[in-house]
C-alpha cells in the first residue's frame, strides 16, 4: 500500500491554516446571537446558561422574558458589576424565535434581530414544535472543534457506523461554498447503504439510497443548520447550535425536526443523539486537550477535509478581523436571508 500525499486545494488550505496556528479553543467571536435555551425550558424559575464562560440567567416574570448577567435575586446588588456585554444594565438583548431564546453576545448597540440566522424549516414563532424533536446534548470540546466534528464527513462512517451506516457508496462528492460568515458543505452520495436507523425504524426497506446532505454553518455563533435528504426516504432537517460554554465544553440544544417523517421514526430518531453523542465525545475529549499543546506538527488533511479546512481558515480570518476591532458583517453576509434553496428543500 503506497502513501498518497493528497496536497490538493484542501491540503494547501490546511497548510495555510496550520501556519496560523489553529487553536479552536481561543476563538471568542462577538456580535452574534446565541440560541441559549429552548423557549419551552424557561419559566419563572431562573435557569443558568453559559456563553464563552459568561453567565446568562434566563427567566420569565409576568410573561416577559429576561436574560441577565446575574440571578434575579442578586441583580440589584450586583448590577454595579455588570459588563459591557449589557451596557452596564445587567440585561442582555434577548429574542425568541424558532423555539429558542437567542441572547446577544457582544456590543448591545449592534444587536439587530435580522442577524438571527434563518431556519426555513422551523416556524419562526416556535409554535407547534414538538418537544420530542428537542434534545440537549453536551460535547466535551470547545465549540469550534465540535463544529469541525459535524462538518467532518468521513468520521461518521466509522465512529457512528452502527447508527448512521458504513462508508459503502457508488459515488461520494463533496462541495463547499462560503461567505465571510458561513460555510456550506454539500455532500451528494449515490447508492449508499441505507442507514441502520432508517432501515429498522424508518421503514426504508431498500438496500441503497441516495443522500444529499447540506450543512450550513454560521461561524460566529456555531449555529449549524442541516438538511440531509434521503431517497428513498425523507429529509431529516435539524439545527445543532454549538453554544460555547468554555474552552473545554460546548452545549447543543438540538432540534431534529422529524415531524414529517413516519412514526415511530419521527419520535425515536431525535433520541439517536443518546448514541451518537457519547461516540463523538470519546474522540473529542482527548482531541480538545491536544489542541492546547503548542506544536510544530501540523495537522494532515485529505481531500475530504476541504470543508473543515475552509471552516478553519474562515474562522481565523473572522477572529483576526475582530481582533482589529471590526465586528461588522460583510456585504456578503446576511444571516436572516432565506436559505431554503441553499439547503435544497423540497416543495
Amino acid at each position, binding site marked *: 500500500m503506497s502513501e498518497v500525499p493528497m496536497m490538493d486545494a484542501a491540503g494547501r488550505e490546511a497548510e495555510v491554516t496550520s501556519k496560523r496556528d489553529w487553536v479552536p479553543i481561543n476563538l471568542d467571536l462577538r456580535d452574534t446571537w446565541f440560541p441559549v435555551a429552548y423557549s419551552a425550558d424557561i419559566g419563572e424559575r431562573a435557569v443558568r446558561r453559559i456563553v464563552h464562560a459568561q453567565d446568562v440567567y434566563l427567566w420569565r416574570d409576568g410573561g416577559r422574558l429576561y436574560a441577565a448577567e446575574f440571578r434575579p435575586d442578586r441583580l440589584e446588588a450586583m448590577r454595579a458589576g455588570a459588563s459591557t456585554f449589557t451596557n452596564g444594565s445587567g440585561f442582555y438583548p434577548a429574542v425568541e424565535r424558532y423555539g429558542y431564546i437567542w441572547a446577544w453576545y457582544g456590543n448591545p448597540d449592534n444587536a439587530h434581530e435580522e442577524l438571527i440566522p434563518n431556519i426555513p424549516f422551523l416556524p419562526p414563532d416556535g409554535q407547534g414544535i414538538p418537544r420530542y424533536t428537542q*434534545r440537549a*446534548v453536551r460535547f466535551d470540546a470547545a465549540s469550534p472543534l465540535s463544529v469541525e466534528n459535524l462538518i467532518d464527513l468521513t468520521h461518521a462512517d466509522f465512529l457512528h457506523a452502527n447508527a448512521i451506516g458504513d462508508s459503502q457508496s457508488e459515488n461520494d462528492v463533496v462541495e463547499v461554498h462560503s461567505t465571510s460568515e458561513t460555510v456550506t458543505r454539500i455532500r451528494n452520495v449515490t447508492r449508499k447503504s441505507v442507514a441502520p436507523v432508517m432501515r429498522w425504524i424508518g421503514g426504508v426497506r431498500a438496500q441503497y439510497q441516495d443522500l444529499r446532505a447540506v450543512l450550513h454553518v454560521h461561524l460566529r455563533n456555531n449555529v449549524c443548520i442541516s438538511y440531509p435528504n434521503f431517497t428513498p426516504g425523507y429529509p431529516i432537517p435539524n439545527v445543532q447550535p454549538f453554544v460555547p460554554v*468554555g474552552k473545554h465544553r460546548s452545549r447543543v440544544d438540538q432540534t431534529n425536526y422529524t415531524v414529517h417523517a413516519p412514526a415511530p421514526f419521527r419520535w425515536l430518531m431525535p433520541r439517536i*443523539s443518546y448514541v451518537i453523542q457519547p461516540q463523538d465525545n470519546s474522540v473529542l475529549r482527548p482531541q480538545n486537550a491536544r489542541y492546547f499543546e503548542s506544536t510544530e506538527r501540523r495537522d494532515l488533511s485529505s481531500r475530504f477535509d476541504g470543508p473543515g479546512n475552509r471552516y478553519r481558515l474562515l474562522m481565523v480570518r473572522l477572529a483576526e478581523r475582530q481582533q482589529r476591532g471590526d465586528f461588522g458583517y460583510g456585504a456578503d453576509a446576511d444571516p436572516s436571508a432565506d436559505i431554503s434553496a441553499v439547503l435544497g428543500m423540497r416543495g
Partner: protein
Amino acid sequence: MGRWWAVALSEAVQGDKALAVTCEGEQLAVFRDGRGAVFALEDRCPHRRVPLSPGPVKPAGLQCPYHGWTFDGATGLCNDIPNLRRDERVPARYAARVFPASEANGFIHVWRGKGTPAAELPGASYRAAGREHTGSAVANIAFEQYLDVMLDGPECLLSFPSVHITDFFLGDARRDGGHLVLDRGAVWKGKGNGPAFVRDHSLWVRTRVPLTGGDIRVELLSADEDPLVTIFIAASENRRGTTSLVWRGFLHTAPAPLSWRWRMARAIGRAPFAIFPHIDGAAVAALEVAPSRDRRLAKTDASTPAERVVPVQERCAV
C-alpha cells in the same frame, strides 16, 4: 515570602501528646501548652536527630523521648537537659527550629517560609453552620496533582453520597484573588436519562483551588445556588509524592427538596461527603488536563498571574 498552612484539626492536638504532621515535605511536631496555646517545632531533636513528636509535653515544653532534652514551644530554646550539674547551664544557642503557629475555626496553622506571618489564616474563611464532619489522611497523590485534579476531576478525590459529579464545566475556571473557582454540573444518582442528557443539572459542584498554598473549598450547590454541603480541605505536600489532608465540612439546612436517599442517609447520621485517602490511579491518569491548565499557567507566570487567566470581559478575539 512564606505562608500559613493548615496542618491539623484543632481537636487532634490535645493533652500531653504532640502530633506529627508533614507540611511542604517537612516533618513537624505540633503541641499545646497547659493553657491551650499551640506550637510547632521541627520534628527533629537538634541533639541526636530523633523525632520529638513521640515525646511528652511537659510544662517547660516538648521533651525529646530519647534523652529528655526539652524545648520551649514559643522560642524553640532548649530549657532542660537532664543530668546536668547544678552549676551547668544549657548553652543559649541550643534550640529546635520553631515555626509560628496559630489556630482558627478548627484548624491549626503553621507559618512556613520567610517574612512576618500574615494576619489572615486560610482557615479563617471557613465557618461551620451545621453539624461538622472532619478527618485527616495522607493521600497517595502528589500535592500539585491533588490541586490540579480537584479542578479537572474532583470525583477522583471525593464524593457526595447519591450524587453523580459530572465533568461538564460550567464555563471556565475564573480567578478569585489567589484562587481559581470552577463550577461543574452534578445530578442525583438514579434519576433521568443520565447526567449527559439532562436539560439542566439539578446540582452543581463548585471547587475553589489555590494557585499557591493548600486551602481548598468544595461546595455542593442546588440549581438555585443554595449551598447544601461545604467542605474545607487543607492540603500540603507530604513525603514521597503524597499529600497531607485535613478537612472539615458541614451540611447546610437544605432549602430545596432533596432526594429521599439523601434525606434518609442524613437522618441516620451518615456523612454528607467522603474524602478519598486512596486515589484511583487509573481514574486520575485518564483525566484530560483541562481547567488545571489555567492554574499551571498562572503559577508559572508568577510575575503577571492575573493576566494569564483573563477576565471574561477583557478577552480578545483570538
